[in-house]
């Protein structure tokens, strides 16, 4: 692969992720789309199409739900397709690369999502000053960081070999990885804490515990079930309140 082809493939991979952030999840990072595009860049559209479509069926269920980080389909399929075409190993070669790489590469997305907490805090500072341009800057900076989180690993993996990237990730001590993972799992508590702080007057606080307990003890109930119950309850609440007001 020439360096320009490597660069273009990495750039496109980053771009599809950037557009997922900035244009509302257009599904461009799916293997079905990325495969043939990578094929076009490398001059073998047919193989790209075939590999992309096969990987699409493999990765059918992978999707971020509620801020989780599933295996990284985009990097996996871009790399898998590129290596399948250049090494001539076809679909088997693509699978061998795409699936493990997708798992390793999800770490980079996690880095980006952890790091972007800083851009929110900087945006807080700009908001305090009424500087909307500063806030916008943080939005774009965050998106560019997300772009790099896909662009750089793809570039490195294509340039140095995917084994190199896997080795690199494995070289990070397990302690440090679990430290970073713990930070990632704790940070949403800050978001929820802030939200509670904005929402609650002390008298309403027990309602938070009601929602929490239902979801914690009956996971299958789900957010939709809780919303269903909640709507029924608050409708009762509001109608009763309105009746009292009318009588008074």
């Amino acid at each position, binding site marked *: 692969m020439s360096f320009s082809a490597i660069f273009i493939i990495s750039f496109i991979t980053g771009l599809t992720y950037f557009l997922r952030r900035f244009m509302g999840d257009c599904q461009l990072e799916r293997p079905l789309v990325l495969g043939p595009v990578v094929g076009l860049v490398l001059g073998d559209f047919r193989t790209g199409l075939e590999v992309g479509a096969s990987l699409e069926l493999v990765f059918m269920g992978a999707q971020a739900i509620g801020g989780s980080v599933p295996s990284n389909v985009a990097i996996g399929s871009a790399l898998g397709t590129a290596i399948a075409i250049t090494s001539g190993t076809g679909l088997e070669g693509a699978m061998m690369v795409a699936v493990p790489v997708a798992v390793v590469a999800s770490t980079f997305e996690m880095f980006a999502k952890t790091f*972007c907490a800083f851009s929110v805090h900087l945006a807080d500072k700009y908001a*305090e000053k009424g500087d909307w341009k500063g806030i916008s800057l943080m939005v774009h900076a965050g998106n560019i960081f997300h772009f790099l989180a896909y662009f750089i690993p793809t570039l490195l993996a294509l340039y140095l070999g995917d084994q190199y990237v896997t080795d690199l990730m494995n070289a990070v001590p397990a*302690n440090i990885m679990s430290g970073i993972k713990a930070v*990632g799992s704790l940070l949403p508590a800050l*978001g*929820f804490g802030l939200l509670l702080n904005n929402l609650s007057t002390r008298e309403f606080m027990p309602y938070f515990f009601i929602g929490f307990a239902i979801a914690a003890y009956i996971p299958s109930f789900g957010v939709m079930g809780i*919303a269903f119950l*909640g709507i029924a309850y608050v409708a009762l609440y509001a109608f009763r309140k*309105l009746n009292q007001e009318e009588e008074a």
Partner: protein
Amino acid sequence: MGEKILTKKDLTRLFIRSNAVQSAFNFERQQALGFEWGMIPLINKLYKNPDDRIAAYKRHLGYFNSHPWTCGPIYGMVASMEERKAIGEDIPEENITAVKSALMGPLAGIGDSLFWGTLRPIAAGICASLALSGNGIAPLIFVLFVNAIHFGVQYWGVMAGYNFADQFMEKMQSFQIKAWMEAATILGLIVVGGLAATWLNVTTPLTYTTGEASVALQATLDNIFPKLLPLLCTLGVYGVLRKGKSTMWAMCAIIIIGFVLGFIGVL
């Protein structure tokens, strides 16, 4: 009632910007920056007084996480509430936050199951088999088809949300709006409680031994009070913020504590 400020053009612009809801996605406040970015032109148009503007910027930097294809109604309703607030109606900012909080979870649930769980796999599955049988434009069909639905749903959502909230507040008297807003706050808290228990995943790998057997602490916790750790974390942060610590302070504390606990294998 004062003159309406927002035009169709403003709402169209809101729809276009609402697609960036996932921008600068981060674990702390998820789609907060994306939501904020969508609201900026609207805030700038509605509020001329610097203090009101700053309050509005800060208001929409709060935690937000919904679905990029189904969050439109939230944008529309919030736009209508902000418009009325700017005209001078009595709409406390807690109410705006409450509406966002009450709707983001359920709409995300609808989007996840309807689009990620159903439409996307079906469309991708059909187009992938077309592609495997040699059809070169199958990927293009996939992209055009899902995005026609994507942008259509989002556009309709923004407009419908605005019209709904607008008519609701037009018809209701102020004491009725107050009762319904209180209901929205309660619903918001219930749903946020459910979201915190669903989306927050703090677990411990620690084990302890009773007699011969080694028992996972997490399994014991799950038997007594599942999701106890996420609850403690959320309440801890909430308590610290109530005491007046800055969010920056809280974030640094979380990063340090989280890293150390993860490093030594407690989390």
